[in-house]
C-alpha cells in the first residue's frame, strides 16, 4: 500500500467510525422516545466524539488536497467525504435534539402509542443503517431502498403530524406535548433527509455524477 493509499484508508475508517457513532445516537434517540429516558452523559460524550471526528475528517482531507493532489475517483472520494461528514454530524445533532425534546413530552407513552411513533422510529433506524451500509459496500440496490424509505418516512410523518394537529384541536391540554412531538417527528424526518444526501454523495463517488438536485426518479441506475 502506498503512503497515499494509507491516507485514503485512514479517511475511510474515520467515516465508518463517525457513521456508526451517528447511527448509535439515532438508535439511542428512538429508544429514549419509545421507552425510558436514557443516560444523558453518554449521549453528550458521543456527541463530542462525533464533533472531533468531523474536524479530523476536515484535517485529513485538507492534508490530502495540499500534499497529494488527488484526481478522478480519489478526488471524488475526498470531496464526498467532506460533504458526508457534515451530513453525519448533523444527524448526530438531530438525534441529540430528539433526546432533549423527548423530556418535554408529558403523557408521552400514550401519545407515542396513539400515533404509532414506533413504526416511524423503526424506519428512521433502518434508513440510517442502510446509509452506512451503502457507504461501506457500495451496493447500489441500497441506494434505491434508501430513497424508498425516505419517501415512506415523509408520508408517515405528514400523516402523523396531521393526526396530532387534529388531536390538539379537540383536546387543548395536549397542545404542549403535541407540539413537542411534532418537532421530534420533524427531526426524525430531517435525519432521513440527511441520509439521502449521504447516499447521493456515495453515488457521486461511485458514478462521478452529481445528482444532489435531481429528482430521484430521473436517476438512471447503472
Amino acid at each position: 500500500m502506498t503512503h497515499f493509499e494509507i491516507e485514503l484508508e485512514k479517511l475511510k475508517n474515520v467515516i465508518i467510525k463517525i457513521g456508526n457513532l451517528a447511527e448509535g445516537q439515532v438508535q439511542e434517540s428512538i429508544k429514549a422516545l419509545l421507552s425510558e429516558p436514557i443516560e444523558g452523559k453518554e449521549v453528550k460524550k458521543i456527541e463530542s466524539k462525533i464533533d472531533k471526528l468531523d474536524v479530523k475528517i476536515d484535517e485529513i482531507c485538507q492534508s490530502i488536497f495540499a500534499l497529494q493532489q488527488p484526481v478522478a475517483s480519489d478526488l471524488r472520494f475526498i470531496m464526498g467525504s467532506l460533504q458526508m461528514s457534515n451530513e453525519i454530524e448533523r444527524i448526530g445533532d438531530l438525534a441529540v435534539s430528539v433526546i432533549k425534546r423527548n423530556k418535554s413530552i408529558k403523557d408521552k407513552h400514550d401519545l407515542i402509542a396513539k400515533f404509532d411513533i414506533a413504526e416511524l422510529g423503526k424506519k428512521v433506524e433502518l434508513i440510517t443503517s442502510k446509509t452506512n451500509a451503502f457507504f461501506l459496500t457500495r451496493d447500489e440496490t441500497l441506494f434505491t431502498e434508501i430513497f424508498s424509505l425516505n419517501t415512506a418516512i415523509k408520508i408517515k410523518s405528514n400523516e402523523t403530524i396531521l393526526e396530532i394537529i387534529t388531536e390538539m384541536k379537540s383536546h387543548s391540554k395536549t397542545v404542549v406535548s403535541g407540539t413537542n412531538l411534532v418537532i421530534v417527528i420533524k427531526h426524525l424526518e430531517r435525519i432521513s433527509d440527511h441520509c439521502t444526501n449521504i447516499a447521493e454523495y456515495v453515488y457521486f463517488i461511485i458514478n462521478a455524477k452529481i445528482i444532489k438536485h435531481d429528482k430521484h426518479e430521473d436517476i438512471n441506475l447503472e
Partner: protein
Amino acid sequence: MKNTKIEVKDLSLYYGEKQALKNISLEIPRNKVTALIGPSGCGKSTFLRCINRMNDLIPSVKITGEMLVEGIDIYDKNVDVVNIRKKIGMVFQKSNPFPKSIYENVAYGPKINGINNKTELDEIVETSLRQAAIWDELKDRLDDSAMGLSGGQQQRLCIARTLAVSPDIILMDEPASALDPISTSKIEELVHELKEQYTIIIVTHNMQQAARTSDYTAFFYLGELIELGKTNTIFTKPEQKQTEDYITGRFG
C-alpha cells in the same frame, strides 16, 4: 472533433523490429493545448517527434500510417521537410540557445529564411520576445550572450526563437521539467497565452502540469493511445481503467 489541425490515421512506428507506436489514430484540435501523458517508454515523445518528422533523423525507423497536418500527409514524398519544421516548431526539455547574443538567437531563423532587413528583424525579435513573455526582462541587454541567462529565461528565449519563424504548431517536450516552480509557472502561463495563436502539443511527466495547462489530454501506454479526451474529463472521470490507474498513481 471540430476544427481539427492534425489528424493521425493508423500511425505505427518501428525502431528496427521493435514497434514503438501501435496504430495510433487521433485528432488534435486547432488553437488548443493537447497534453501527452504516460509512463516512460510509452511512446509519447516518439509520437511528438513524428509530428515534425524528427524521427527521420534516426536510422532504422520505419513509419506507417498517415500524419495529416491541415489535411496534408507530412510523410508524403512530395512534402518538403524543411518547410514542415518551419511550420511546426519544437521546444525541448533542456533549453538549447545558440552560443550567440539574445538578439541573434531570435533573429537566426528569420535570417536563414531570407529576412535581412534590420527594421524587419528588430520587429520580429521584439514581437517574439514579447510573445514569449520575456521582452521586459531582456530588452536592455539584447546584445548579451544567451548563455548568461537563467534556465527559465533560456527556455523562454528558445520559445521566442521558435515563434520567430511564425509556426502554426508548437511541440513542447517536457519544456519545464528542468525549471524551478516560478519559471515553470511562467512557462505554463505562456502556454496558456500562446494557444490563442498556435496549436500546442506538450509532453509532460508532470500530471498536474498537464491538468493545469491543457485543454485535451492523451494517455499513452506501451505504444498505444489508451484514451484522448477533454482534460477536465480525463482528470475527473476517465473512461478507461488504465487511465484512472495511471493518473491516480496506482499503475503497474
